[in-house]
């Protein structure tokens, strides 16, 4: 038996282990990474189907469609972020860890982002071309996604933590998260639209940075608090 006083705390190692675990899980059932991307692609192709398939109209709608697609895709993959842990009891182990919970959940959110938001960002230019987004809009689109999707993951994780004990929480999660998502959506599409029209768009971008930074600082605390409260 080691004395507790003498032990050094290996918080970083724990976070890395958690990230590694989640990434391994994601790669082991490869659907987990492909699926959000496929969903993204499908949402993007639903719109031309459901809406008048006019090229001009489409290119105007493109930023909105892509961003809404990304948003929904992240949202759908968030549902299981903590629920899968809750179902098999790993969540109890997370809560029983001596490391600060906020740090651990940040690690979890990070690996979630890597397997969802990041992949979406990489894929977005393709969809942009499919939806006839003007060339000038493509880089801003990717950039806003890069800055915005982590915010989606962070904000959504709060909802995911709050609904972790609820049987069919998927839709409730949506309800809780969407209010936080709307500002991101507005600023991001605003940036892309502005860029596509050749207007300055750094104002929008700065706001996205603000969201990201404050999300990084505050969301883990909220998530950790929610998990502690909700796990009864």
């Amino acid at each position, binding site marked *: 038996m080691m004395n507790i006083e003498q032990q050094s705390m290996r918080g970083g190692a724990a976070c890395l282990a958690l990230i590694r675990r989640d990434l391994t899980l994601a790669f082991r*059932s490869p659907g987990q990474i492909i699926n959000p991307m496929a969903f993204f692609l499908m949402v993007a192709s639903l719109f031309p189907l459901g809406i008048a398939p006019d090229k001009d109209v489409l290119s105007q709608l493109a930023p909105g469609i892509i961003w809404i697609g990304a948003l929904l895709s992240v949202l759908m993959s968030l549902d299981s972020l903590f629920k899968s842990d809750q179902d098999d009891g790993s969540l109890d182990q997370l809560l029983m860890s001596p490391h600060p919970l906020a740090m651990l959940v940040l690690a979890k959110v990070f690996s979630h982002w890597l397997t969802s938001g990041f992949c979406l960002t990489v894929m977005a230019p393709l969809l942009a071309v499919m939806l006839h987004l003007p060339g000038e809009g493509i880089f801003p689109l990717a950039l806003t996604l890069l800055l915005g999707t982590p915010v989606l993951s962070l904000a959504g994780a709060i909802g995911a933590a709050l609904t972790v004990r609820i049987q069919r929480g998927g839709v409730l999660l949506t309800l809780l998260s969407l209010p936080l998502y709307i500002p991101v959506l507005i600023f991001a599409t605003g940036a892309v639209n502005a860029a596509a029209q050749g207007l300055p768009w750094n104002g929008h971008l700065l706001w996205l940075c603000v969201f990201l930074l404050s999300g990084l600082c505050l969301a883990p605390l909220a998530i950790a608090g929610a998990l502690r409260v909700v796990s009864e």
Partner: protein
Amino acid sequence: MMKWTFFHKLGSPKWFYDISGKWLPWLQITSLLSLVVALIWGLAFTPPDYLQGNSYRIIFIHVPASFLAQAIYMMMATAAAVLLIWRIKLADMALKVMAPIGASFCILSLATGAIWGQPTWGTWWVWDARLTSMLILLFLYIGIIALRGAIQTSEVAAKACAILSLVGVVNIPIIKYSVNWWNTLHQGATLKLTEKPSMAPEMLWPLLLAILGFYLFFTLVMFLRLRVEILSREKKTRWVKALVGE
């Protein structure tokens, strides 16, 4: 189930492995030959079309790829039915190896169609019935591949994919008859089973040869993949151990 023993023997992996081994060299030669001849003939030596000029030559890839994309799906559905009714392992292996090949041909058909559409119709893509149903076919292929990847127990994955393949069959007649049922931009059938094809013979022959070549090529690729699959699935059996030990 005594009367089915013959059938089961037909579906035995070892039997297939042996037979396909004998066929492989022939397949290689004939598919290569017919493909090369058909493509060179079609792309270089056939006359241009009276209306489309030279751009129509992509027909020698587009049409065989489109036919195969659908045919492979039908074969998968057949394999699925065989698997579900008679539980023949080989059917599942075929189902598994065919899906990516079918998806590739589907992508090829979509891509060549889009490339062809630009000069003829004036657009890469329209959401008409033929094109949309073809895109759905691609989604079906992707779904089947993803489902197999997601289920870990291989037997369960096999049957689940079989059911999904059967469900998707409704799409095939839609693709086939969409041009007749709805007034689409995509042209109607040029090659008809019951009537004389509405294509000049000097274009028709290379096209038929190309179709044959694509089928042979598909058979070749499927056999190759299937043999690998058989070996990896049967690696614990005596005959494979003996084979590998040699």
